[in-house]
């Protein structure tokens, strides 16, 4: 199976902010593969290196050593991001734009023809239920609405790989259900989803495979069912054990 996401001995170091502390290793020799059509959960406690790994995949940060590939293309090439959609944890969009304008802007960045873009914008605004608010500036949106705009912009280019960072963070149960539905629908369409989340119950429901990292190192990787069977515990207990919480099992 061709890997959609591939990390080979990925290492990311950065200089510690405090003087005399030397270098800090955020990601230590991480090896990971995500196949096409998978829903892959990327789990770990705060500070484990999840965000840093995602930043490398998205080209925000350069790896100190090792390599990362999207669709077989080195992530340092901007073209590697042509077929991905990214939903950040916190919504960061131009507040002075309307939802429609934002989607149109990103469609232009992807080089999507105008007619196709307009059709897609209509569909996406309907999907995320922002039709009524499409002409209002984003700064007037609630947090939930901003998250939905984020989801819409992540889907504007009909991506083959969706990278989601805490996609249900800040959403009400209805919103979370919507996100789960979208992930399931994308999976049915053969898309790949790579997401990090602290909602382990949700991860257990939607993910095919998971990887758990802690302190920059990969602790375990595998299909959810297999992990649960092997450890004879639910995903949360496995997580707590692997990250060093001894009271877990």
């Amino acid at each position: 199976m061709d890997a959609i996401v591939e990390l080979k001995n990925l290492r990311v170091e950065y200089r510690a902010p405090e003087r005399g502390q030397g270098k800090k290793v955020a990601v230590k020799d991480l090896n990971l593969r995500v196949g096409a059509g998978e829903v892959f959960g990327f789990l770990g406690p705060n500070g484990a290196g999840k965000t840093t790994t995602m930043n490398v995949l998205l080209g925000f940060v350069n790896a100190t050593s090792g390599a990362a590939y999207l669709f077989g293309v080195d992530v340092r090439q901007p073209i590697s991001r042509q077929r991905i959609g990214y939903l950040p944890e916190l919504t960061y969009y131009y507040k002075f734009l309307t939802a429609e304008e934002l989607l149109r802007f990103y469609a232009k960045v992807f080089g999507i023809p105008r007619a196709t873009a307009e059709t897609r914008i209509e569909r996406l605004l309907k999907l995320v239920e922002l039709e009524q608010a499409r002409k209002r500036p984003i700064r007037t949106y609630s947090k939930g609405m901003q998250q939905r705009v984020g989801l819409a912009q992540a889907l504007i280019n009909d991506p083959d790989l969706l990278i989601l960072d805490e996609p249900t963070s800040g959403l009400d149960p209805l919103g979370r259900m919507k996100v789960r539905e979208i992930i399931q629908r994308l999976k049915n369409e053969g898309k790949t989803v790579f997401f990090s989340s602290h909602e382990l119950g949700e991860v257990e429901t939607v993910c095919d495979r998971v990887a758990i990292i802690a302190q920059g190192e990969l602790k375990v990787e595998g299909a959810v069912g297999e992990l649960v069977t092997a450890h004879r515990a639910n995903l949360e207990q496995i997580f707590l054990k692997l990250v060093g919480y001894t009271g877990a099992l």
Partner: protein
Amino acid sequence: MNTVMALAGIVIKELYRRKDFYVVFVLTAVMTLLLGSVNFFHDDKIVRYLKDVCLLLIWVSALVIAIVTSARQLPMERESRTIFPLLAKPVTRAQVIVGKFFGCWFAVGLGLLVFYFFFAVLAGSRDHRWPLAEYIQALWLQWSMLAMVIAGVLLGSLVFAAPSSNSTISFVVVAGILLLGRHLNQVALQQPEPLKTLVYVLYFVIPHLEWYDIRDRVSFDQALVPWADCGLATLYAAVYVAFLLFAAWLVFRRKPLNQ
């Protein structure tokens, strides 16, 4: 090119949705109209002082808009973290720099059109003549100068800690070049070595923004600057812009996106 123009469009939208331009334009218009309403010895044909003052206000306003708008582009992208979803698309950092430059430049250009239209109407109402070629030339040269300023400020926004410090330093540098740039060689000749050499080197290195200031020619109804010279000045500006944007890219590509 699509990406660059899309980014430019965002900057233009931002400018006309903020109040900066409207405030500056209204101030310019009010001050000029007030001055125009003053009666000097019952002579309503006096027009040059009005043109002079109006053009000065246009220059100051355009510089304010250019510097303030450019100074906040990249820091704001990083501070509001909109840079992340942007760079998660197939967008390079070079495209971001170039897109921001064109956005600021086109936005300022649109502002200049409005200012010069106002100026033409005001001057024409007194003068009863409309030397459009002169006005177009003055606008074009000013716009070319502002391209260099914008590119410099974009570089400054990656070097200096805050937009406010970048803006202040940029204003001082630009004002210094406009007022003194022409005379630095004279100043150099009056200095002892090694200051003489230093000042002379500075004289050759700085972009000579004062060439583009032909307000006097417009106010005093002088002939057009030869278009060939205009073309050379535009080329000079283009070279400086390319250099400054390249330097900005060199800095930006290594800069961490997190503060």
